[in-house]
């Protein structure tokens, strides 16, 4: 399998002195769906932010063998699509069309190409016909789908999603899971929703306090009740 993301000894400290990641090593292969699980504040989001260079990593992260640095930023961002947890942060334009078109326009596509990319992306997430709606009129589930479309419109090779099912009711959650299952693309999903992890991901990585605790097949990790409860992923009594 082709290796598409490689993280070597990544450590990161926020400006306020909080150590968010310590010596993270990680390799993602083409076509995988990987879950990044861990309790609140484990560093999942911070790790995702490194994958397309929003946070800087001095070459500790490589995408398709190229280091993520200032020279490669544009290219990396077109390869790694990052979907934020709160769709109100992700959707900042007056209309859905403008939001989905934002990425492709920034990548310099022509008008006809942008329109086609937007139409395709909205098609993939089942949101055709929402082009002229305002994001603040949509439900949370609809916003989440549009947020994914805003990234898919850039035709990324890797989709990195932060908590895709937070704040969703069960019906919306499962329809979003089915949507993600249908997308043929390498996916990295940060979540502590174990139902989602079980349904979608072959591989799971447990992260706690910025350190990778375990990395293996989802079935093995979810079966290890002691591991889950030690890292805030199951009822604490089990340990």
């Amino acid at each position: 399998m082709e290796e598409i993301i490689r993280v070597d000894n990544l450590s990161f400290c926020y400006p306020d002195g909080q150590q968010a990641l310590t010596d993270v090593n990680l390799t993602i292969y083409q076509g995988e769906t990987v879950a990044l699980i861990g309790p609140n504040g484990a560093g999942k989001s911070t790790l995702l932010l490194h994958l397309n260079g929003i946070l800087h990593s001095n070459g500790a992260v490589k995408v398709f063998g190229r280091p993520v640095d200032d020279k490669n930023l544009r290219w990396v961002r077109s390869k790694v699509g990052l979907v934020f947890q709160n769709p109100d942060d992700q959707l900042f334009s007056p209309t859905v069309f403008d939001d989905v078109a934002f990425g492709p326009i920034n990548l310099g596509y022509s008008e006809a190409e942008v329109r086609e990319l937007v139409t395709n992306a909205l098609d993939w997430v089942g949101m055709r016909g929402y082009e002229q709606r305002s994001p603040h009129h949509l439900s949370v589930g609809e916003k989440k789908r549009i947020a994914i479309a805003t990234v898919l419109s850039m035709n990324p090779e890797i989709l990195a999603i932060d908590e895709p099912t937070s704040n969703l009711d069960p019906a919306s959650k499962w329809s979003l899971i089915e949507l993600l299952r249908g997308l043929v693309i390498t996916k990295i999903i940060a979540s502590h929703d174990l139902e989602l992890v079980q349904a979608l991901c072959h591989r799971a990585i447990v992260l706690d306090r910025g350190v990778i605790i375990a990395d293996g097949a989802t079935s093995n990790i979810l079966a290890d009740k002691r591991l889950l409860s030690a890292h805030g992923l199951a009822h604490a009594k089990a340990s």
Partner: protein
Amino acid sequence: MKHSFLDQYSDRDSIIHRLDPRTKLITTLFFILAVVLTPPNRWPAFALYFFLVAALLLFSKVPALYVLKRSLVIMPFVVMLAIFIPFFKEGEVAGSYNIWLWQISVTYSGLQVFWNILAKAWLSILSLILLTSTTKFSNLLKSLEQLRMPRVMTMILSFMYRYLFVLVDEVMRMRQARDSRNFGGGRLWQLRTIGNMIGTLFIRSYERGERVYAAMMARGFDGQTRTLESLNFRQLDVFFGVGLGLVLILATVVNLLY
């Protein structure tokens, strides 16, 4: 949560709705310019302006009551600004009052200016309501952009429009959270709570700004703003623009002759 939106009736269909936003924007600006520059004593001209806006509002199929209510919102501010003019304008005295140590007099010309300011403000606000309730805000922004308004400004407006509702929701949630735990306390205590809420709101907005910026960067934003051009002028726009322009010129000429 639902709010009353600035462009509440913009998804209806009428001749006015179908005009290019740029046509509407420019004619509205010229209309306001004409209204503001008309001398105070030219009442026929104001009647004409009113007739014009009223007719266009009728064509636009926006409910009259909604327009009226909305237009009255701005009036207290105008009154507050203009209320002192009758007392300071020199001229023939209409009435004089003694209040404790001061003598205050109201002049006819002052009153005329006062009424005139109210009338001008009202006519201007009517035309702006006509503009905003027949044009989607996003189209309005696009038209500003195509009229060469700096993109930074239109982006600020666009963010303001987008996050206004998010912030209002946040304030409402904070208020509910406060009220559900509020068991009285002195006025000073209440004020302190409000101060804390404003501070929290500021910090949250600031952090949200950082997250939005990260979301923009994640989609290839590099400080340069790019946009698609998509609005089209049509024959209707030419008719409307030229027609309204002619009426305004006519009004000016009538003013000069009168």
